């Protein structure tokens, strides 16, 4: 059988999916079966979408529902599919001075933190996580500003770095579960609340629109979407574990919609 040079496919994605190793795990069989080489760009959500809008990626995998819809609506992308979700948790100092332990709703927990003026470290980088957090403040009609509100800090950095700042400042922080699993042994902070449906974090996969950029490898991109949403792909996601914990939950068939 003749072997041709593998085709290059550029996937623009958020840091979290890449850094947890999920993509390396998923893409190995895909590359083999399709004789292609997937170039993963692991970027912040905003940057990941922007790079695709500039025509520099063939497909994106991100978690920022509103932005994803806008991306499709403006015609940059086609065929958005739900792939999986994980969720966020709130971490904080063991002493829990704001007393959020046991509270069921994330909105309520943040209100307690704000009322107690306990340090809270925000991603502050317009990432999916930051957007989620901002949605809670909006609901509470609070607009905290870094430094002006002495308890509120915008880190403007990635998840791990933000968590480290929270650790240093003994503050509360909104963390995705993958990062939590990964860092829980390296931080003094502990998990104080999770399980609220509001904290769900769904991922979508979108092919870049070949009408906008004729050079994109649309067919291959479609194949990848098919692969991620196939029964086999979904099972692979469910099977992916790190230190015995499942990181992502497939949801192509039954999207758990979050408000």
């Amino acid at each position: 059988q003749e072997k041709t040079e593998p085709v290059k496919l550029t996937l623009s994605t958020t840091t979290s999916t890449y850094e947890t190793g999920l993509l390396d795990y998923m893409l190995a069989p895909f590359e083999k079966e399709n004789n292609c080489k997937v170039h993963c760009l692991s970027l912040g959500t905003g940057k990941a979408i922007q790079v695709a809008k500039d025509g520099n990626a063939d497909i994106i995998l991100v978690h920022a529902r509103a932005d994803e819809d806008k991306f499709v609506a403006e015609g940059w992308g086609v065929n958005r599919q739900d792939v999986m979700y994980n969720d966020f948790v709130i971490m904080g100092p063991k002493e829990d001075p704001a007393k959020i332990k046991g509270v069921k709703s994330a909105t309520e927990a943040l209100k307690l933190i704000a009322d107690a003026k306990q340090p809270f470290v925000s991603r502050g980088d317009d990432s999916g996580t930051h957007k989620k957090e901002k949605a809670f403040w909006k609901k509470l009609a609070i607009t905290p500003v870094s430094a002006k509100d002495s308890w509120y800090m915008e880190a403007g950095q990635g998840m791990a770095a933000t968590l480290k700042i929270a650790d240093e400042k003994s503050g509360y922080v909104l963390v995705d579960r993958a990062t939590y699993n990964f860092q829980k042994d390296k931080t003094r902070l502990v998990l104080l609340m999770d399980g609220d449906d509001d904290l769900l974090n769904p991922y979508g996969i979108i092919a870049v629109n070949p009408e906008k950029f004729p050079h994109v490898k649309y067919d291959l991109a479609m194949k990848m979407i098919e692969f991620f949403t196939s029964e086999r792909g979904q099972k692979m996601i469910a099977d992916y574990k790190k230190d015995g914990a499942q990181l992502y939950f497939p949801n192509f068939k039954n999207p758990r919609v979050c408000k």
Partner: protein
Amino acid sequence: MDYILEGISEAFRLILSSDSEFWNIVWLSVKLSIISTLLASVIGVPAAFFLVIKKFRGREFLITVSNTLMSIPTVVVGLLFYSILSRRGPAGDLALLFTQTAVVIGQTFLILPVVVSLTVSTIRSLDKSVSETSVSLGANKTQQLLMFFSEARFGVAACLITAFSRVFAEVGVSMMLGGNIRNYTRTITTAIALETSKGEFGLSIALGIVLLAVAFTINFFFLKFTKLYRTVD
């Protein structure tokens, strides 16, 4: 190209604005960079003199180490001091992490090798007759060193400018040790990193242009003021 054009117009808007957050960021960048450059000079220049003047075993080795340390990535410097300043680290009780002081410490360390290596090369390329002549005319140690600098003024200028540039442009240390905390430790470069990660490329470029404009102004006045350009030639 869109981003560049967008960046240019945005840069003008920023510079003409009276947005206090923006100007605080600019001022913080300048302040931290100048302090770091000064500190690194105060430590690095005598060290360089020592390396050139004293003859001892391992001198060339130390110079090579200094040359090597010019290659240290900013993030690594950030991580090293993070490890030290972190609550769990040996200097954790000082609570310096994510403060401006931490940034200055890291930045000083970052450019120390630049100052040392360039000063060493500057002094080495000077003729021995400089110090011999000034001594023969009655110069004391300080006056002798001053004459070294006066004779090597183009080299010294280049050294200071290079060190300042390095620190003004760096992001890794400021990010790791300052934390890019809004209204507190956010500098132009960490702001650029943030905007870039948000995909706000135009704004990033605008901030880059602002940074260059500031650097140009500083260079210009530095050179004018210290008369480090050849007036006698």
